[in-house]
């Protein structure tokens, strides 16, 4: 409580201090990654750190996990599955909707943690890379578990082995 009061009463003490206005007690953002009803079951679904385990897959034959789609073209094959991301703008007072806080929507970005020059990583047909964050949605709606489709395209020329990476999602209020 003492912290909140001290922040809310920020006033310029000197010319070098800027004037900030915020209401931390009533303005909070939350995010979780969830399994989609028609997608692969995620490890850690509903939390801030989830994982997709496809097991051992191959371009032709073998087993395709439930909720996963495999597509084969002339030189590549792609595995894809939907998953959900939910962002909520929770008002800690539970009295005011977030629209009154002038943040009715959010921006969601995704970025690969490690560079991958061989395979193509996409979410909703938007290619991901490790150098810049890709904006997935610029005006997302709060409180909705929105579905996104993850797709990994692997060229036939790639040697068999383990493909792994981490996708970092960032949500920022608008």
């Amino acid at each position, binding site marked *: *409580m003492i912290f909140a009061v001290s922040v809310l*009463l920020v006033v310029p003490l000197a010319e070098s201090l800027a004037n900030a206005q915020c209401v931390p007690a009533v303005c909070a953002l939350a995010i979780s990654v969830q399994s989609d009803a028609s997608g692969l079951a995620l490890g850690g679904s509903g939390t801030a*750190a989830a994982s*997709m*385990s496809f097991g051992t897959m191959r371009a032709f034959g073998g087993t395709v996990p439930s909720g996963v789609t495999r597509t084969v073209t002339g030189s590549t094959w792609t595995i894809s599955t939907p*998953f959900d991301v939910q962002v909520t703008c929770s008002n800690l007072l539970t009295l005011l909707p977030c629209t009154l806080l002038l943040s009715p929507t959010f921006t969601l970005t995704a970025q690969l943690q490690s560079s991958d020059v061989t395979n193509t990583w996409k979410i909703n047909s938007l290619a991901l890379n490790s150098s810049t964050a890709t904006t997935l949605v610029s005006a997302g709606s709060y409180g909705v578990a929105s579905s996104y489709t993850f797709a990994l395209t692997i060229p036939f020329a790639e040697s068999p082995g383990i493909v792994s990476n*981490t996708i970092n999602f960032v949500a*920022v209020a608008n």
Partner: protein
Amino acid sequence: MDAKHIVRWTPKHLLLLCLCCCGSQLTAQEDAAKPPTITLTPAVIMVKAKPGQSFSQELTLWNNTINELQFHLDAVDVVVRDGRRVFVPAGELEGSIARYAVFTDNDVKALPGSSVSTTVTVTVPTSPGPRAIACIFQGKTVMGTTNSFAMTASLGSLVTFTVGDDFHLENQPLQVSVDPDAKMITFHELVKNTGSDPVIPKGVIAVTNERGALVARMPVAGKRLLPGESMEFTADHPGLPKTGKYKVMLLMQHESAFFSSSAEFSVK
């Protein structure tokens, strides 16, 4: 936010504030029963500053998961490109503000069911380019095994800067959509921020009949527009008024001015 818009705190306000803060603590305890996720507060900070001035803000992240989570603090500039907000690494843009953001802790660890805080101090450069930064708690904890794809969710606080009180908007003509099937009238107007500072337009719509009598009045919720950003401001009117011609006027205000637009429509 201009100084004239800042609330003047009175003892009554402080009492309300204390009640609010108590409420927030109770709510934080109740968070344990909520889905296991992470929460960042505050989500948005609006700063009015001049070049060379500094401000500090404590940021708190709640970890409501059962796992210990590690985060790296990162500041990025937020600009609008091709109509979308994009996050640009600090220092890449001319006049980058994120470059001058300093955290008390660059790496933090949030234990399960607890929170972790850090304070960001930002000094506005001499000629700031962007007018917003995002202070991001970048998740570093990876779940799963080596033969799985990991997904980490991170949160960022948006910090906007009003530097020169340069508030300019361009608005398109007011549009009216009458949907007789859904019995709904939608009013929408595209507004673009052509100034160099963030603005938050908001307003009210008034509908009058042929005799000039007020038929309906609806608020238009405010939305934050960064420089170069466009958004459609809308208001829905449920139900249709009786057959006739109507005039609608949209009166909007932002940090320094009012502007209005009008249109006519008919209900058959």
